């Protein structure tokens, strides 16, 4: 049996999945002031009376780090930034303890200016005295040569709980993003560690020594130990859970738009022939642009519980949620109340919904039903507009070869998969408004938790080789080796695959999960004077997001509509 648990903005969902069916599901309200309680209640309920040895894994997707960033509850962190010429690095300042120091590496990875050890020692003793426990060290072009980041770490010495180096976080270029990524990893580290140590301990106490996996923003999983090294990867994993839950139902030869309509927000993503589209650079959160690998998702503050109000005679929906729908005792009318008024969903106290919508309808000068209809159409229109913008953005992504320009693949989803609380009611409206084939993900209420449970490991490795300098580096893997003149693209791909396999297994993947593919393989002849002096090779390989092989074939039947014990 396996367990998936997804903490959402409104509810925390958990499922227990057996060999061929969902055995149990549970839904508890998310308590943002005590997330541990929400997670623990979910786990406790779902594992009650289950023999511990029969559970082979639990995958958790939480909002812990996401919320810490949004609410700015970040731990004190010292940032050391090594820039060299270019944009003034002061402009990338992340926090108070942010120091730009000497040292510089150029685009080929050559050291241009050495670091100043005295400067680092001074910082280290000052920060130790101030009690800073987390440190981020980031150099420009450190992914081409991590030498200076490593030297700085060495000089920093003991006395810090967590030191993160920029080149380990991503093989991609982007100095400002590398700074932000290091800062977020370091500043969420203590809260992440405390939280999951507590989860681990509590499970142990219950005698449940289950392997714990954490869901990442890219829709993949990693084991708990790996998440302790790079907790930043857990930021914004919520949308990924839903996308993975929708995956089994997407067409194998088409492009799919996934809409997850929650209480507070709606998340959207795109699948290309059942593979989620990844963001080309990394997540953005609370003004931080990062290199954290992630699915391409977009979230808008519009959901079943969004507050409805009139502003200057115009109907406004969200972006805030003031509480549950009025039918469930909330203070303001919501789209869910509109669905109740129209009889498209049932539940709660429908009189409260009518009362709530009546005052809106009166001000709009329409009947209650007309007002409800208008509200729901407006919600759907806004969601579709946003989805269209996202797809336009995806299609306008620049490409850098003649071949790609002429090919010019345009993403044009032909089907929509809807999940989340009010999915069926909205699906019907989307179908009426568009020419798309719109389907509801079966078990739409807990598809997110199922997605988390079934997600397999994902990884990426970047190899950069410069045969003129005679080096090949894989910055994230702490790997560097000298290469001969005849080292080429094939050699680099092989090297990258070897490193990727090791990384996957280290992150807790089974051999079966390691399905590797090449994302990028570029080789340039380096010509100086009129002679070829070397090769500049860039290779990026990955294990793409998907479902764990054991469940891939039967994933669809898992969702079959048999009755599932649990509080739906």
């Amino acid at each position, binding site marked *: 049996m396996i367990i998936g648990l997804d903490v959402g903005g409104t509810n925390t969902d958990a499922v227990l999945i057996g060999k061929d069916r969902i055995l149990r599901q549970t839904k508890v309200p998310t308590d943002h002031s005590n997330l541990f309680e929400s997670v623990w209640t979910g786990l406790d309920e779902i594992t009650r009376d289950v023999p511990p040895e029969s559970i082979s894994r639990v995958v958790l997707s939480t909002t812990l780090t996401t919320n810490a960033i949004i609410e700015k509850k970040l731990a004190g962190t010292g940032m050391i930034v090594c820039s060299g*010429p270019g*944009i003034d690095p002061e402009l990338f300042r992340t926090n108070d303890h942010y120091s730009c120091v000497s040292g510089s590496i150029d*685009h*080929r990875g050559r050291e241009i200016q050495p670091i100043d050890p005295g400067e680092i020692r001074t910082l280290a003793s000052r920060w130790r005295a101030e009690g800073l426990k987390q440190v981020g060290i980031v150099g420009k072009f450190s992914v081409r040569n991590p030498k200076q980041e490593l030297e700085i770490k060495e000089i920093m010495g003991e006395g810090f709980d967590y030191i993160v180096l920029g080149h380990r976080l991503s093989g991609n*270029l982007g100095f400002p993003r590398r700074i932000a990524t290091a800062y977020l990893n370091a500043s969420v580290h203590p809260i992440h560690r405390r939280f999951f140590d507590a989860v681990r301990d509590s499970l142990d106490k219950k005698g449940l020594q289950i392997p714990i996996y954490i869901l990442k923003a890219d829709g993949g999983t990693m084991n708990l130990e790996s998440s302790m090294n790079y907790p930043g990867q857990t930021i914004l994993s919520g949308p990924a859970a839903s996308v993975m839950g929708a995956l089994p139902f997407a067409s194998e030869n088409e492009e799919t738009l996934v809409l997850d309509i929650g209480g507070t927000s709606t998340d959207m993503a795109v699948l290309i022939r059942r593979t989620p589209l990844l963001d080309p650079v990394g997540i953005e959160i609370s*003004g931080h642009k990062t290199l954290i690998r992630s699915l391409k998702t977009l979230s808008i503050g519009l959901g079943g519980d969004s507050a409805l109000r009139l502003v200057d005679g115009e109907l406004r929906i969200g972006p805030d949620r003031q509480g549950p729908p009025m039918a469930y005792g909330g203070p303001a009318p919501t789209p869910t109340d509109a669905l109740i008024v129209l009889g498209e969903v049932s539940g709660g106290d429908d009189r409260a919904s009518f009362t709530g919508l009546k005052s809106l309808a009166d001000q709009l000068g329409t009947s209650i039903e007309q007002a409800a209809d208008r509200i729901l159409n407006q919600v759907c229109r806004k969601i579709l507009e946003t989805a269209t913008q996202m797809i336009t953005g995806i299609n306008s992504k*620049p490409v850098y070869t*003649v071949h790609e320009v*002429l090919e010019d693949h345009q993403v044009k989803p032909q089907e929509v998969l809807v999940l989340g609380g009010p999915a069926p009611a909205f699906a019907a409206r989307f179908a009426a408004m568009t020419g798309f084939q719109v389907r509801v993900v079966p078990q739409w209420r807990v598809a997110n938790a199922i997605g988390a449970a079934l997600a397999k490991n994902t990884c990426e490795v970047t190899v950069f080789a410069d045969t003129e300098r005679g080096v090949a580096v894989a910055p994230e893997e702490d790997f560097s080796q000298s290469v001969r003149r005849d080292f080429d693209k094939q050699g680099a791909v092989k090297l990258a695959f070897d490193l990727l396999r090791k990384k996957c297994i280290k992150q807790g993947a089974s051999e079966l999960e390691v399905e590797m593919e090449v994302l990028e393989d570029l080789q340039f*002849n380096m010509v100086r004077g009129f002679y070829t002096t070397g090769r500049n090779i860039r290779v990026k390989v990955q294990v793409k997001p998907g479902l764990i092989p054991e469940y891939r074939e039967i994933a669809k039947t898992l969702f079959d509509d048999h009755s599932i014990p649990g509080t739906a």
Partner: protein
Amino acid sequence: MIQTKAKTGLVFFPAFDWAISATHPEREERLLYTQDQVFEEGLLDVEGIVEYKPDLATVEDIQRVHFCFPDERRVITESHLISAGGAKKIGIEVMEKRIERGFALVRPPGHHAMRVVHGARGFCNINIEAIMIEYLRNHYAVDRVAIVDTDCHHGDGTQDIYWHDPDTLFISVHQDGRTLYPGSGSYDEMGGPTAVGSTVNIPLPPRTSEEGFLYVLDKVILPILADFKPDLIVNSAGQDNHYTDPITNMCFSAQGYAELTSRLRPHIAVLEGGYSIEGALPYVNVGIIMALAGMDYSKVKEPDYHPEKTRQSIDSTRYIEKLTAVLMETWEKSAEVRDKHRASLRFAKRERNIFYDTDQIYESQRENLRVCPDCSGVLAIHSDTDRGKQIHAVHIPRKACKACQELGYEWFDSSRARQYDGVFLQDRPRDQYVVKELNNK
């Protein structure tokens, strides 16, 4: 949060799968390190910098500018259409006011491509700036355009295309042609009889540094631009004046290019040459982008930048001061000279030999221009190559008077097709390009 002063568009097209030949300066690797630097600096994340996909230029776009023989498709590759399309995309975004300024960081370049194209010259097949400008003139209210070419090589292609156009000011700053390809661009090349003054050449001595470039910018280029009052300023932003460039001899720097861009304030910059792909391009391009956007570029410097080591000689400074005086005097008299030509000439002929160094073609051209009192005059070109090809081409300019339009058609109609391998008419007022049906010779 970094914010630009001017919203700036960027088309970045490094053509990673296109080269003239494996070890040619114009090869796949050329913009590799520039891309690394631009990505690593995070410029594409800056609020106010937007990256666009290049458009694909069309055959019609080329036909507004060039006479291609045997035809457009056979003198270009797809990469040229993307490069020209990249410039065009930036032009459109500027005209639509979605951006204030833009930079087409594209390859292959174009400023050595002349009006008649038999092949590639100086790594250029079609003139990407001219293709953009003529597209904009057709689709937007753009009339007067200034092109400031800061490539180290004389922009002889652009000069040729606009030689007879008084509404296009072409200013080229370059290493003196007596010391560098293509050899032209002397200070006394000032434009055709009806467009005297709208071509300005500023040939600088080898080893000219920041001081000299910024001096002619302040004393020649900016004053002439102020007089000319263009609707649009285009910078042919070649970067081979850099002190590390392997095929030129100048001493300009990333700081210098950024400062020049900042003072020139072009609406559109288009990359031309520049072959110091590691030591110059990454820094110069970052400097230009930041200067266009109005960001602080004071820390953008090459790792080996020591301005005192590359400073120009006192002799060069004196020479440049004298040249400046001559150029400004010429500029002030140009209207007078134009009027004199109009009063004294009916037709003007020009004969030239043109060498296509990249494709090894020798062309000889005879031009005949009607020196019209009412417009810039209809132009006929007779072109022969050493490959035994002869073409006859008639260009009716954008603002041609009725008489010149009629004469253009007369020339085209009376041109005996059997005598030529190609007979072409470029009718700019009607935006038409006509190829005469040929009988076998």
